[in-house]
Protein backbone atom coordinates (compact mmCIF):
# COMPACT_ATOMS: atom_id res chain seq x y z
CA UNK A 1 0.00 0.00 0.00
CA UNK A 2 1.16 3.46 -0.89
CA UNK A 3 -0.56 5.27 1.91
CA UNK A 4 0.19 4.30 5.50
CA UNK A 5 -2.53 2.03 6.79
CA UNK A 6 -4.40 3.20 9.90
CA UNK A 7 -6.31 0.54 11.81
CA UNK A 8 -8.44 3.20 13.44
CA UNK A 9 -9.91 4.89 10.41
CA UNK A 10 -13.17 3.93 8.74
CA UNK A 11 -14.18 5.25 5.30
CA UNK A 12 -16.46 8.29 5.44
CA UNK A 13 -16.50 8.54 9.22
CA UNK A 14 -14.45 11.71 9.44
CA UNK A 15 -16.64 13.35 6.83
CA UNK A 16 -19.89 12.47 8.64
CA UNK A 17 -18.40 13.56 11.98
CA UNK A 18 -17.29 16.95 10.71
CA UNK A 19 -20.64 17.38 8.96
CA UNK A 20 -22.30 16.65 12.32
CA UNK A 21 -20.30 19.29 14.15
CA UNK A 22 -21.10 21.75 11.40
CA UNK A 23 -24.84 20.97 11.53
CA UNK A 24 -24.87 21.15 15.34
CA UNK A 25 -23.56 24.70 15.29
CA UNK A 26 -25.10 26.08 12.08
CA UNK A 27 -28.58 26.79 13.55
CA UNK A 28 -27.16 28.26 16.76
CA UNK A 29 -24.72 30.41 14.79
CA UNK A 30 -27.54 31.73 12.59
CA UNK A 31 -29.58 32.53 15.67
CA UNK A 32 -26.75 34.51 17.23
CA UNK A 33 -25.91 36.21 13.93
CA UNK A 34 -29.38 37.68 13.45
CA UNK A 35 -29.47 38.91 17.04
CA UNK A 36 -27.14 41.64 15.80
CA UNK A 37 -29.31 42.51 12.80
CA UNK A 38 -30.23 46.17 12.37
CA UNK A 39 -33.47 45.30 10.55
CA UNK A 40 -36.67 43.78 11.95
CA UNK A 41 -36.29 40.49 10.07
CA UNK A 42 -34.68 37.30 11.31
CA UNK A 43 -33.86 36.30 7.74
CA UNK A 44 -32.62 39.40 5.89
CA UNK A 45 -29.37 40.97 7.06
CA UNK A 46 -29.46 44.78 7.17
CA UNK A 47 -26.28 45.64 9.01
CA UNK A 48 -24.84 45.40 12.49
CA UNK A 49 -26.64 46.84 15.48
CA UNK A 50 -27.19 46.22 19.17
CA UNK A 51 -30.70 47.65 19.12
CA UNK A 52 -32.40 44.31 19.85
CA UNK A 53 -30.30 43.75 22.95
CA UNK A 54 -31.33 47.22 24.10
CA UNK A 55 -34.98 46.67 23.34
CA UNK A 56 -34.91 43.31 25.17
CA UNK A 57 -33.28 44.95 28.17
CA UNK A 58 -35.89 47.72 28.25
CA UNK A 59 -38.80 45.31 27.80
CA UNK A 60 -40.49 45.17 31.22
CA UNK A 61 -41.98 41.71 30.56
CA UNK A 62 -38.51 40.36 29.83
CA UNK A 63 -37.09 42.02 32.94
CA UNK A 64 -39.78 40.52 35.16
CA UNK A 65 -39.53 37.06 33.61
CA UNK A 66 -35.74 37.10 33.96
CA UNK A 67 -35.86 38.10 37.61
CA UNK A 68 -38.46 35.43 38.32
CA UNK A 69 -36.42 32.77 36.48
CA UNK A 70 -33.29 33.63 38.43
CA UNK A 71 -35.15 33.76 41.75
CA UNK A 72 -36.72 30.33 41.14
CA UNK A 73 -33.46 28.82 39.90
CA UNK A 74 -31.41 30.10 42.85
CA UNK A 75 -33.98 29.01 45.45
CA UNK A 76 -34.61 25.61 43.86
CA UNK A 77 -30.88 24.98 43.37
CA UNK A 78 -30.14 25.98 46.97
CA UNK A 79 -32.87 23.78 48.50
CA UNK A 80 -32.26 20.81 46.22
CA UNK A 81 -28.50 20.94 46.81
CA UNK A 82 -28.98 20.80 50.58
CA UNK A 83 -31.42 17.89 50.29
CA UNK A 84 -29.18 16.14 47.76
CA UNK A 85 -26.04 16.59 49.88
CA UNK A 86 -27.77 15.04 52.89
CA UNK A 87 -29.13 12.22 50.74
CA UNK A 88 -25.69 11.62 49.20
CA UNK A 89 -24.10 11.39 52.66
CA UNK A 90 -26.80 8.88 53.58
CA UNK A 91 -26.34 6.66 50.52
CA UNK A 92 -22.58 6.47 49.97
CA UNK A 93 -19.60 4.92 51.76
CA UNK A 94 -21.68 2.28 53.47
CA UNK A 95 -22.25 -1.45 53.18
CA UNK A 96 -25.66 -2.25 51.71
CA UNK A 97 -28.48 -1.68 54.19
CA UNK A 98 -32.25 -2.24 53.96
CA UNK A 99 -33.78 0.52 51.88
CA UNK A 100 -30.62 1.68 50.09
CA UNK A 101 -31.76 0.51 46.65
CA UNK A 102 -35.18 1.98 47.33
CA UNK A 103 -33.56 5.36 48.04
CA UNK A 104 -31.55 5.29 44.80
CA UNK A 105 -34.67 4.50 42.80
CA UNK A 106 -36.72 7.12 44.60
CA UNK A 107 -34.18 9.91 44.19
CA UNK A 108 -33.61 9.18 40.51
CA UNK A 109 -37.29 8.73 39.72
CA UNK A 110 -37.81 12.24 38.26
CA UNK A 111 -35.28 11.29 35.54
CA UNK A 112 -37.28 8.23 34.48
CA UNK A 113 -40.63 9.89 33.81
CA UNK A 114 -41.26 12.05 30.72
CA UNK A 115 -41.44 15.71 31.73
CA UNK A 116 -44.88 16.18 30.21
CA UNK A 117 -46.27 13.43 32.46
CA UNK A 118 -44.85 15.00 35.63
CA UNK A 119 -46.08 18.39 34.42
CA UNK A 120 -49.64 17.18 33.97
CA UNK A 121 -49.65 15.32 37.29
CA UNK A 122 -48.45 18.47 39.08
CA UNK A 123 -51.09 20.56 37.30
CA UNK A 124 -53.79 18.20 38.58
CA UNK A 125 -52.58 18.18 42.19
CA UNK A 126 -51.68 21.86 42.45
CA UNK A 127 -54.95 23.05 40.93
CA UNK A 128 -56.81 20.98 43.53
CA UNK A 129 -54.69 22.48 46.31
CA UNK A 130 -55.32 25.96 44.88
CA UNK A 131 -59.05 25.37 45.12
CA UNK A 132 -58.79 24.09 48.69
CA UNK A 133 -56.38 26.68 50.10
CA UNK A 134 -56.84 29.68 47.82
CA UNK A 135 -53.05 30.09 47.65
CA UNK A 136 -51.73 30.61 44.14
CA UNK A 137 -48.25 32.07 44.76
CA UNK A 138 -44.84 31.09 43.48
CA UNK A 139 -44.52 28.26 46.06
CA UNK A 140 -45.84 25.69 43.58
CA UNK A 141 -43.13 26.49 41.06
CA UNK A 142 -40.48 26.39 43.80
CA UNK A 143 -41.69 22.98 45.02
CA UNK A 144 -41.79 21.51 41.51
CA UNK A 145 -38.36 22.86 40.54
CA UNK A 146 -36.75 21.73 43.80
CA UNK A 147 -38.08 18.20 43.28
CA UNK A 148 -36.83 17.71 39.72
CA UNK A 149 -33.48 19.37 40.52
CA UNK A 150 -32.66 16.92 43.33
CA UNK A 151 -31.45 14.03 41.10
CA UNK A 152 -29.24 16.42 39.11
CA UNK A 153 -27.68 17.96 42.22
CA UNK A 154 -27.28 14.46 43.70
CA UNK A 155 -25.20 13.08 40.77
CA UNK A 156 -21.94 15.06 41.13
CA UNK A 157 -22.11 15.13 44.94
CA UNK A 158 -22.45 11.37 45.11
CA UNK A 159 -19.66 10.91 42.56
CA UNK A 160 -17.36 13.12 44.63
CA UNK A 161 -18.19 11.30 47.88
CA UNK A 162 -17.52 7.91 46.35
CA UNK A 163 -14.00 9.04 45.52
CA UNK A 164 -13.35 10.05 49.12
CA UNK A 165 -12.41 7.33 51.59
CA UNK A 166 -13.21 7.43 55.28
CA UNK A 167 -9.58 7.55 56.49
CA UNK A 168 -9.51 11.27 57.25
CA UNK A 169 -12.87 11.20 59.03
CA UNK A 170 -11.69 8.24 61.15
CA UNK A 171 -8.49 10.10 61.99
CA UNK A 172 -10.53 13.11 63.11
CA UNK A 173 -12.73 10.89 65.27
CA UNK A 174 -9.61 9.29 66.80
CA UNK A 175 -8.49 12.78 67.78
CA UNK A 176 -11.77 13.26 69.70
CA UNK A 177 -13.48 15.49 67.13
CA UNK A 178 -17.26 15.42 67.56
CA UNK A 179 -19.21 14.07 64.53
CA UNK A 180 -20.37 17.62 63.73
CA UNK A 181 -16.82 19.00 63.92
CA UNK A 182 -15.55 16.17 61.76
CA UNK A 183 -18.20 16.98 59.18
CA UNK A 184 -17.54 20.72 59.28
CA UNK A 185 -13.72 20.59 59.29
CA UNK A 186 -13.01 17.47 57.20
CA UNK A 187 -15.91 16.18 55.10
CA UNK A 188 -17.41 19.47 53.98
CA UNK A 189 -14.18 21.10 52.70
CA UNK A 190 -13.34 17.94 50.73
CA UNK A 191 -16.87 17.64 49.37
CA UNK A 192 -17.17 21.33 48.46
CA UNK A 193 -16.35 21.07 44.70
CA UNK A 194 -19.01 18.37 44.34
CA UNK A 195 -21.58 20.48 46.16
CA UNK A 196 -20.75 23.49 43.98
CA UNK A 197 -21.02 21.39 40.81
CA UNK A 198 -24.36 20.00 42.01
CA UNK A 199 -25.65 23.48 42.73
CA UNK A 200 -24.66 24.75 39.30
CA UNK A 201 -26.16 21.77 37.50
CA UNK A 202 -29.42 22.24 39.43
CA UNK A 203 -29.36 25.97 38.65
CA UNK A 204 -28.99 25.40 34.89
CA UNK A 205 -31.65 22.66 34.86
CA UNK A 206 -34.12 24.89 36.70
CA UNK A 207 -33.33 27.93 34.52
CA UNK A 208 -33.85 25.84 31.35
CA UNK A 209 -37.12 24.22 32.30
CA UNK A 210 -40.00 24.88 29.92
CA UNK A 211 -42.51 22.07 30.18
CA UNK A 212 -43.13 21.72 33.92
CA UNK A 213 -43.11 25.50 34.43
CA UNK A 214 -45.57 25.99 31.57
CA UNK A 215 -48.10 23.70 33.27
CA UNK A 216 -47.54 24.67 36.91
CA UNK A 217 -47.36 28.47 36.62
CA UNK A 218 -50.35 30.58 37.59
CA UNK A 219 -51.31 33.74 35.70
CA UNK A 220 -48.56 36.38 35.71
CA UNK A 221 -45.82 33.90 36.62
CA UNK A 222 -43.96 33.76 33.31
CA UNK A 223 -40.35 32.67 33.47
CA UNK A 224 -37.95 33.55 30.66
CA UNK A 225 -38.42 30.23 28.80
CA UNK A 226 -42.23 30.28 29.03
CA UNK A 227 -42.20 33.93 27.93
CA UNK A 228 -40.13 32.95 24.89
CA UNK A 229 -42.41 30.02 24.12
CA UNK A 230 -45.36 32.41 24.14
CA UNK A 231 -43.52 34.83 21.83
CA UNK A 232 -42.75 32.15 19.24
CA UNK A 233 -46.44 32.03 18.36
CA UNK A 234 -46.36 35.63 17.19
CA UNK A 235 -44.29 37.38 14.55
CA UNK A 236 -40.72 36.82 15.62
CA UNK A 237 -38.36 39.80 15.78
CA UNK A 238 -34.60 39.59 16.46
CA UNK A 239 -35.41 40.52 20.06
CA UNK A 240 -35.98 36.81 20.72
CA UNK A 241 -32.59 36.13 19.10
CA UNK A 242 -31.00 38.67 21.42
CA UNK A 243 -32.58 37.09 24.53
CA UNK A 244 -31.52 33.63 23.29
CA UNK A 245 -27.97 34.83 22.71
CA UNK A 246 -27.64 36.14 26.26
CA UNK A 247 -29.24 32.96 27.63
CA UNK A 248 -26.82 30.90 25.54
CA UNK A 249 -23.81 32.84 26.80
CA UNK A 250 -24.85 32.27 30.42
CA UNK A 251 -25.39 28.53 29.82
CA UNK A 252 -21.98 28.18 28.18
CA UNK A 253 -20.35 30.02 31.07
CA UNK A 254 -21.96 27.67 33.59
CA UNK A 255 -21.15 24.52 31.63
CA UNK A 256 -17.53 25.61 31.33
CA UNK A 257 -17.22 26.19 35.07
CA UNK A 258 -18.97 22.88 35.77
CA UNK A 259 -16.62 21.12 33.34
CA UNK A 260 -13.54 22.39 35.19
CA UNK A 261 -14.96 21.77 38.67
CA UNK A 262 -15.70 18.19 37.76
CA UNK A 263 -12.37 17.51 36.09
CA UNK A 264 -10.21 18.12 39.14
CA UNK A 265 -9.76 14.90 41.03
CA UNK A 266 -9.59 14.58 44.80
Amino acid at each position, binding site marked *: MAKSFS*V*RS*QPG*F*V*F*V*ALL*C*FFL*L*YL*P*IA*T*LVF*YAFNAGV*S*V*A*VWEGFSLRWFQSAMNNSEVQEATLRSVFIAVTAAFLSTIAAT*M*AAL*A*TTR*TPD*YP*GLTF*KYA*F*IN*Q*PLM*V*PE*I*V*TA*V*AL*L*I*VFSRIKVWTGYSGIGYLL*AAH*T*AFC*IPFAYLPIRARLENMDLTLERAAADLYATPWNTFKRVTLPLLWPGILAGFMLAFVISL*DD*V*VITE*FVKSGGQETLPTY*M*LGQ*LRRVVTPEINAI*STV*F*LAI*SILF*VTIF*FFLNRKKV
Partner: protein
Amino acid sequence: MATAGEIALAAVKRDIRNRWLLSVPALVIIALAAIGPLFVMLLYSFMVKGDYGDVKFGQFSFDGWFNVFFTRDIFDDTLTFADAHLSILWRSISLSLITTVTTLFFGFPTAYFIATRPQHQRDTWLFVVTIPFWTNILIRTFAMQEVLRNEGIINSALRAMHIIDSPIQIMFTNWAVLFGMVYVYLPLMVLPLYASMEKIDFRLVEAGYDLYATRLQVLRRIIIPLVKPGIIAGSILVFIPSLGAYVTPRVLGGGKSMMLGNLIELQFGQGRDWPLGAALSITLMVVVTLALLVYVRNASRGGGGHG
Protein backbone atom coordinates in the same frame (compact mmCIF):
# COMPACT_ATOMS: atom_id res chain seq x y z
CA MET B 1 -23.86 -5.93 80.65
CA ALA B 2 -23.61 -5.34 76.92
CA THR B 3 -21.06 -7.40 75.06
CA ALA B 4 -18.75 -5.94 72.44
CA GLY B 5 -20.93 -7.54 69.77
CA GLU B 6 -24.05 -5.87 71.07
CA ILE B 7 -22.33 -2.49 71.20
CA ALA B 8 -21.18 -2.88 67.60
CA LEU B 9 -24.68 -3.90 66.53
CA ALA B 10 -26.17 -0.87 68.28
CA ALA B 11 -23.67 1.36 66.46
CA VAL B 12 -24.68 -0.11 63.10
CA LYS B 13 -28.37 0.40 63.91
CA ARG B 14 -27.73 3.99 64.94
CA ASP B 15 -25.82 4.57 61.71
CA ILE B 16 -28.69 3.23 59.60
CA ARG B 17 -31.18 5.36 61.55
CA ASN B 18 -29.06 8.47 60.98
CA ARG B 19 -28.84 7.66 57.29
CA TRP B 20 -32.63 7.48 57.07
CA LEU B 21 -32.97 10.81 58.89
CA LEU B 22 -30.51 12.40 56.46
CA SER B 23 -32.51 11.15 53.46
CA VAL B 24 -35.83 12.46 54.74
CA PRO B 25 -35.79 15.94 53.08
CA ALA B 26 -34.97 14.60 49.59
CA LEU B 27 -37.45 11.72 49.87
CA VAL B 28 -40.26 13.96 51.16
CA ILE B 29 -39.79 16.64 48.49
CA ILE B 30 -39.75 14.06 45.68
CA ALA B 31 -42.72 12.22 47.19
CA LEU B 32 -44.79 15.41 47.40
CA ALA B 33 -43.82 17.14 44.14
CA ALA B 34 -42.94 14.26 41.79
CA ILE B 35 -44.05 10.74 42.70
CA GLY B 36 -47.18 11.41 44.76
CA PRO B 37 -48.87 13.46 42.01
CA LEU B 38 -48.46 10.50 39.60
CA PHE B 39 -50.73 8.41 41.84
CA VAL B 40 -53.25 11.24 42.09
CA MET B 41 -53.21 11.40 38.28
CA LEU B 42 -53.93 7.67 38.10
CA LEU B 43 -56.96 8.29 40.35
CA TYR B 44 -58.09 11.20 38.16
CA SER B 45 -58.02 9.03 35.04
CA PHE B 46 -60.90 7.06 36.57
CA MET B 47 -63.08 10.08 37.40
CA VAL B 48 -65.91 11.79 35.55
CA LYS B 49 -64.75 14.81 33.57
CA GLY B 50 -65.90 18.24 34.72
CA ASP B 51 -67.91 20.50 32.44
CA TYR B 52 -65.22 23.20 32.22
CA GLY B 53 -62.08 21.16 32.74
CA ASP B 54 -61.05 19.50 36.01
CA VAL B 55 -63.10 16.48 37.20
CA LYS B 56 -66.21 15.86 39.24
CA PHE B 57 -64.27 14.93 42.32
CA GLY B 58 -65.22 11.57 43.78
CA GLN B 59 -67.40 10.41 40.86
CA PHE B 60 -65.79 7.49 39.12
CA SER B 61 -66.03 6.18 35.55
CA PHE B 62 -63.95 4.42 32.91
CA ASP B 63 -64.68 7.05 30.25
CA GLY B 64 -61.17 8.51 30.35
CA TRP B 65 -59.56 5.20 29.46
CA PHE B 66 -62.35 4.29 27.07
CA ASN B 67 -61.79 7.52 25.14
CA VAL B 68 -58.10 6.78 24.67
CA PHE B 69 -58.97 4.06 22.17
CA PHE B 70 -62.60 4.54 21.12
CA THR B 71 -65.04 7.27 20.15
CA ARG B 72 -68.78 6.97 20.59
CA ASP B 73 -70.79 8.53 17.81
CA ILE B 74 -72.98 11.35 19.19
CA PHE B 75 -75.92 10.47 16.94
CA ASP B 76 -76.27 6.72 16.84
CA ASP B 77 -74.03 5.58 19.71
CA THR B 78 -71.90 3.34 17.50
CA LEU B 79 -68.34 2.66 18.57
CA THR B 80 -65.35 3.36 16.37
CA PHE B 81 -61.65 3.40 17.06
CA ALA B 82 -60.40 6.87 18.03
CA ASP B 83 -58.52 7.36 14.75
CA ALA B 84 -57.15 10.76 15.74
CA HIS B 85 -55.59 9.41 18.94
CA LEU B 86 -54.27 6.27 17.34
CA SER B 87 -52.70 8.17 14.45
CA ILE B 88 -51.01 10.56 16.90
CA LEU B 89 -49.80 7.62 18.97
CA TRP B 90 -48.51 5.97 15.81
CA ARG B 91 -46.80 9.20 14.72
CA SER B 92 -45.15 9.54 18.13
CA ILE B 93 -43.78 6.01 18.06
CA SER B 94 -42.68 6.02 14.40
CA LEU B 95 -41.10 9.51 14.55
CA SER B 96 -39.26 8.53 17.73
CA LEU B 97 -37.96 5.35 16.11
CA ILE B 98 -36.82 7.21 12.97
CA THR B 99 -35.19 9.86 15.18
CA THR B 100 -33.33 7.14 17.05
CA VAL B 101 -32.07 5.48 13.87
CA THR B 102 -31.07 8.81 12.31
CA THR B 103 -29.17 9.99 15.40
CA LEU B 104 -27.43 6.60 15.47
CA PHE B 105 -26.44 6.98 11.81
CA PHE B 106 -24.90 10.42 12.44
CA GLY B 107 -23.85 9.87 16.04
CA PHE B 108 -21.87 6.66 15.47
CA PRO B 109 -19.21 8.17 13.17
CA THR B 110 -19.09 11.30 15.32
CA ALA B 111 -18.45 9.38 18.53
CA TYR B 112 -15.93 7.19 16.70
CA PHE B 113 -14.18 10.29 15.40
CA ILE B 114 -13.84 11.69 18.94
CA ALA B 115 -12.74 8.35 20.38
CA THR B 116 -9.95 7.99 17.80
CA ARG B 117 -8.48 11.49 18.38
CA PRO B 118 -5.25 11.72 20.41
CA GLN B 119 -5.96 11.59 24.14
CA HIS B 120 -5.41 15.29 24.85
CA GLN B 121 -7.82 16.43 22.10
CA ARG B 122 -10.76 14.26 23.16
CA ASP B 123 -11.97 16.43 26.05
CA THR B 124 -12.13 19.42 23.75
CA TRP B 125 -14.17 17.59 21.10
CA LEU B 126 -16.48 16.24 23.79
CA PHE B 127 -16.92 19.74 25.13
CA VAL B 128 -17.88 20.89 21.63
CA VAL B 129 -20.64 18.23 21.52
CA THR B 130 -21.79 19.01 25.07
CA ILE B 131 -22.40 22.73 24.59
CA PRO B 132 -25.45 22.37 22.31
CA PHE B 133 -26.68 19.71 24.72
CA TRP B 134 -26.71 22.18 27.62
CA THR B 135 -28.30 24.91 25.56
CA ASN B 136 -31.95 25.43 26.39
CA ILE B 137 -34.11 23.10 24.28
CA LEU B 138 -36.35 26.01 23.38
CA ILE B 139 -33.42 27.97 21.99
CA ARG B 140 -32.25 24.99 19.95
CA THR B 141 -35.76 24.41 18.60
CA PHE B 142 -36.07 28.09 17.76
CA ALA B 143 -32.70 27.95 16.00
CA MET B 144 -33.97 24.98 13.98
CA GLN B 145 -37.06 26.98 13.08
CA GLU B 146 -34.82 29.61 11.50
CA VAL B 147 -33.25 26.92 9.35
CA LEU B 148 -36.51 25.30 8.25
CA ARG B 149 -38.76 28.31 7.70
CA ASN B 150 -39.88 29.35 4.23
CA GLU B 151 -37.40 32.26 4.46
CA GLY B 152 -34.90 30.07 6.33
CA ILE B 153 -31.44 28.87 5.40
CA ILE B 154 -32.47 25.75 3.47
CA ASN B 155 -35.00 27.50 1.28
CA SER B 156 -32.79 30.56 0.73
CA ALA B 157 -29.86 28.38 -0.27
CA LEU B 158 -31.94 26.27 -2.67
CA ARG B 159 -33.38 29.42 -4.23
CA ALA B 160 -30.01 31.07 -4.57
CA MET B 161 -28.83 27.98 -6.46
CA HIS B 162 -31.98 28.15 -8.64
CA ILE B 163 -32.98 24.62 -7.70
CA ILE B 164 -36.43 25.77 -6.65
CA ASP B 165 -38.55 28.83 -7.49
CA SER B 166 -40.97 28.88 -4.59
CA PRO B 167 -40.05 27.77 -1.06
CA ILE B 168 -40.68 24.21 0.05
CA GLN B 169 -43.01 24.09 3.02
CA ILE B 170 -41.07 22.23 5.73
CA MET B 171 -42.43 23.84 8.89
CA PHE B 172 -45.54 22.19 10.36
CA THR B 173 -44.87 18.86 8.68
CA ASN B 174 -43.59 15.58 10.11
CA TRP B 175 -40.25 16.40 8.49
CA ALA B 176 -39.84 19.53 10.58
CA VAL B 177 -40.53 17.59 13.78
CA LEU B 178 -38.10 14.87 12.69
CA PHE B 179 -35.30 17.33 11.82
CA GLY B 180 -35.89 19.17 15.08
CA MET B 181 -35.79 16.06 17.24
CA VAL B 182 -32.68 14.69 15.52
CA TYR B 183 -30.98 18.03 16.10
CA VAL B 184 -32.08 18.32 19.72
CA TYR B 185 -31.31 14.73 20.77
CA LEU B 186 -28.13 13.99 18.77
CA PRO B 187 -25.75 14.72 21.70
CA LEU B 188 -27.69 12.18 23.81
CA MET B 189 -26.64 9.54 21.28
CA VAL B 190 -23.02 10.65 20.93
CA LEU B 191 -22.16 10.73 24.65
CA PRO B 192 -22.93 7.08 25.60
CA LEU B 193 -21.52 5.85 22.26
CA TYR B 194 -18.29 7.67 22.99
CA ALA B 195 -18.18 6.21 26.50
CA SER B 196 -18.08 2.67 25.09
CA MET B 197 -15.88 3.45 22.08
CA GLU B 198 -13.24 5.00 24.31
CA LYS B 199 -12.67 1.54 25.78
CA ILE B 200 -12.17 -0.29 22.46
CA ASP B 201 -8.98 -2.34 22.48
CA PHE B 202 -7.60 -1.59 19.01
CA ARG B 203 -5.35 -4.66 19.13
CA LEU B 204 -8.52 -6.63 18.35
CA VAL B 205 -9.06 -4.45 15.28
CA GLU B 206 -5.45 -4.99 14.25
CA ALA B 207 -5.88 -8.73 14.66
CA GLY B 208 -8.91 -8.51 12.36
CA TYR B 209 -6.87 -6.83 9.61
CA ASP B 210 -4.06 -9.37 10.07
CA LEU B 211 -6.62 -12.02 9.27
CA TYR B 212 -7.48 -10.23 5.99
CA ALA B 213 -10.73 -8.66 7.13
CA THR B 214 -11.98 -5.69 5.08
CA ARG B 215 -12.82 -2.39 6.76
CA LEU B 216 -16.53 -3.16 6.58
CA GLN B 217 -15.99 -6.60 8.14
CA VAL B 218 -13.94 -5.06 10.96
CA LEU B 219 -16.69 -2.53 11.57
CA ARG B 220 -19.45 -5.14 11.51
CA ARG B 221 -17.76 -8.04 13.28
CA ILE B 222 -15.47 -6.29 15.77
CA ILE B 223 -16.31 -2.64 16.45
CA ILE B 224 -20.11 -2.79 16.50
CA PRO B 225 -20.29 -5.85 18.82
CA LEU B 226 -17.81 -4.15 21.18
CA VAL B 227 -19.82 -0.95 21.45
CA LYS B 228 -23.24 -2.61 21.57
CA PRO B 229 -23.94 -1.47 25.17
CA GLY B 230 -23.32 2.12 24.04
CA ILE B 231 -25.63 1.70 21.05
CA ILE B 232 -28.41 0.41 23.29
CA ALA B 233 -27.88 3.11 25.93
CA GLY B 234 -27.81 5.87 23.30
CA SER B 235 -30.93 4.54 21.58
CA ILE B 236 -32.86 4.46 24.85
CA LEU B 237 -31.64 7.93 25.82
CA VAL B 238 -32.89 9.29 22.48
CA PHE B 239 -36.07 7.22 22.15
CA ILE B 240 -37.55 8.03 25.57
CA PRO B 241 -37.42 11.83 25.45
CA SER B 242 -38.51 11.75 21.78
CA LEU B 243 -41.62 9.85 22.74
CA GLY B 244 -42.49 12.42 25.38
CA ALA B 245 -41.37 15.41 23.29
CA TYR B 246 -43.50 18.47 23.78
CA VAL B 247 -41.58 21.65 22.93
CA THR B 248 -40.14 20.55 19.57
CA PRO B 249 -43.39 19.27 18.01
CA ARG B 250 -45.28 22.25 19.43
CA VAL B 251 -42.97 24.81 17.83
CA LEU B 252 -42.03 22.98 14.62
CA GLY B 253 -45.08 20.78 14.08
CA GLY B 254 -47.83 23.08 15.27
CA GLY B 255 -51.37 21.70 15.18
CA LYS B 256 -50.69 19.72 12.00
CA SER B 257 -48.02 17.37 13.26
CA MET B 258 -48.94 16.70 16.88
CA MET B 259 -47.30 14.15 19.10
CA LEU B 260 -48.51 12.45 22.25
CA GLY B 261 -47.20 15.25 24.49
CA ASN B 262 -49.24 17.83 22.58
CA LEU B 263 -52.34 15.64 22.58
CA ILE B 264 -52.03 15.39 26.37
CA GLU B 265 -51.70 19.17 26.67
CA LEU B 266 -54.76 19.63 24.49
CA GLN B 267 -56.93 17.71 26.99
CA PHE B 268 -55.97 20.14 29.74
CA GLY B 269 -56.56 23.16 27.50
CA GLN B 270 -59.23 23.35 24.81
CA GLY B 271 -60.17 19.68 25.12
CA ARG B 272 -61.25 20.04 28.76
CA ASP B 273 -61.08 16.31 29.30
CA TRP B 274 -58.77 15.81 32.24
CA PRO B 275 -59.52 12.08 32.76
CA LEU B 276 -58.58 11.42 29.11
CA GLY B 277 -55.43 13.53 29.50
CA ALA B 278 -54.51 11.62 32.66
CA ALA B 279 -55.11 8.27 30.94
CA LEU B 280 -52.98 9.32 27.94
CA SER B 281 -50.18 10.42 30.30
CA ILE B 282 -50.22 7.07 32.04
CA THR B 283 -50.18 5.30 28.66
CA LEU B 284 -47.06 7.31 27.73
CA MET B 285 -45.43 6.49 31.06
CA VAL B 286 -46.12 2.77 30.62
CA VAL B 287 -44.56 2.74 27.13
CA VAL B 288 -41.48 4.56 28.47
CA THR B 289 -41.17 2.17 31.42
CA LEU B 290 -41.37 -0.81 29.05
CA ALA B 291 -38.57 0.67 26.93
CA LEU B 292 -36.49 1.14 30.08
CA LEU B 293 -37.11 -2.46 31.15
CA VAL B 294 -35.95 -3.73 27.75
CA TYR B 295 -32.80 -1.65 28.24
CA VAL B 296 -32.14 -2.95 31.75
CA ARG B 297 -32.60 -6.55 30.60
CA ASN B 298 -30.30 -6.05 27.62
CA ALA B 299 -27.71 -4.20 29.67
CA SER B 300 -27.45 -6.93 32.30
CA ARG B 301 -27.32 -9.66 29.66
CA GLY B 302 -24.77 -7.75 27.54
CA GLY B 303 -22.61 -7.16 30.62
CA GLY B 304 -22.56 -10.88 31.43
CA GLY B 305 -22.06 -12.06 27.86
CA HIS B 306 -19.13 -9.90 26.83
CA GLY B 307 -17.49 -9.67 30.22
